[in-house]
């Protein structure tokens, strides 16, 4: 359903506020179908925000965005979809290590990756990804 909407109605994200509304419904859907996922997202946010120089904001197309300084580490949509921008080398590395980590749902030919957080194990994978992105940004300076 999410993929269908993104594929055929993705252009509507440029209507101001519409993506935020869509994400609010994703959160509602998650509350009804997999409420524990919301707790995993809270735990991830809390953990990442415990690292120095990190902040959380609302992603421009809806969802929770976690940042290092002014750089985005990644964002999590209301359905638990984590999107993260890495370089090509890191992308190849993480995708080689875990088959559940995929090309970004819209920007396939880029450094973006997508990963669905569904349970406790996925939360740990997501945390490792955030850690990797964090270290990458720290080393870049």
């Amino acid at each position: 359903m999410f993929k269908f909407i993104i594929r055929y109605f993705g252009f509507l994200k440029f209507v101001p506020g519409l993506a935020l509304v869509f994400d609010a419904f994703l959160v509602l859907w998650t509350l009804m179908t997999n409420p524990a996922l919301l707790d995993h997202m809270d735990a991830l946010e809390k953990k990442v925000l415990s690292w120095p120089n990190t902040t959380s904001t609302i992603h421009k197309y809806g969802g929770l965005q976690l940042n290092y300084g002014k750089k985005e580490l990644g964002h999590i949509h209301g359905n638990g979809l984590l999107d993260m921008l890495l370089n090509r080398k890191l992308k190849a590395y993480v995708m080689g290590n875990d088959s559940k980590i995929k090309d970004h749902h819209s920007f396939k030919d880029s450094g973006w990756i997508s990963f669905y957080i569904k349970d406790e194990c996925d939360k740990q994978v997501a945390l490792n990804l955030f850690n990797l992105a964090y270290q990458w940004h720290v080393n870049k300076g």
Partner: protein
Amino acid sequence: MLQKVFSVKNNGFIVSNAVALIIIGGTKYLFQRFYDVPGVLVFSEFVIIPMLMGIVSIWYWRNIVTTKRQLTLWALANTFIACVLSAVFLKEGIICLIIVSPLLFAFILIGQVVGKAMFNRNNQTLNTSVFVMLFGIFIYDSLSVHHYENMVADTITVNAPPAEVWKYVVAYKRIEKKSDYWLFRIGMSSPVQSTAEGYYLGAKRKCIFSNGYVFDEKIVTYDENKDLTFDITNQPRDPEIMGHIDILRGQFLLKDNGNGTTTLTGNSWYRLYVFPVWYYDIWAESVTRNVHLRVMEHIKELAEAK
């Protein structure tokens, strides 16, 4: 007792809804008082005010709401309370509230998330700027001219010649069949019958709905077997319609396909008084389309039975 009622949790619900009611009620009153019109329900009332409700509520809950799960559940509860209060104080209809509730929920939740971020940072300059900006948008939007009209067209093929179809286009007997459209099934009124004082230009026509409400119409184009156009001269004072939408004109066009069948097109023109259009026009188009199809399917059934 009072301490229990006005607990921190309840204050989040009470104050946010009170603020919303005062702003919406006040705007309505001012429009009525100075412009003698009920006013347009501008996008701010469905976007800025719910966001404000979310921010106000989270100010009370900033130390007690810690999880997304709780935040979402309380946003749902606040949406429900806002709908009940709108029904009681603003006399909104149930179907309207069903339509508006997803939008309210989404922006209350967004407001809560924005509020949480604001109060976590505890930057007074930023917080004041957000409130001033929201207030500014509300004032600007309320005073701006809002005008939106649209036309919806639907077409079906009737297996009967135009002369046969025409008999039922001007007036038709009661529709007994139940509708499949979910809004009609949960109580929204649907067209059941049309009567006309005659088959001529200028004749008065009535479109009767399932709840007994009647749209008064006047035939403005009478081109037999081809074109029936009618203006709506009086709308029922239904809370689901009043101040939300005006149906302006309706039209049936018949095209002879030359093989004993007719292409029947139903057109309706309406004006919306609720904004944002990107949300409400989806609903208006859907309802209008289903009104068309209900009538046109009935006409088809009657014409083909002969």
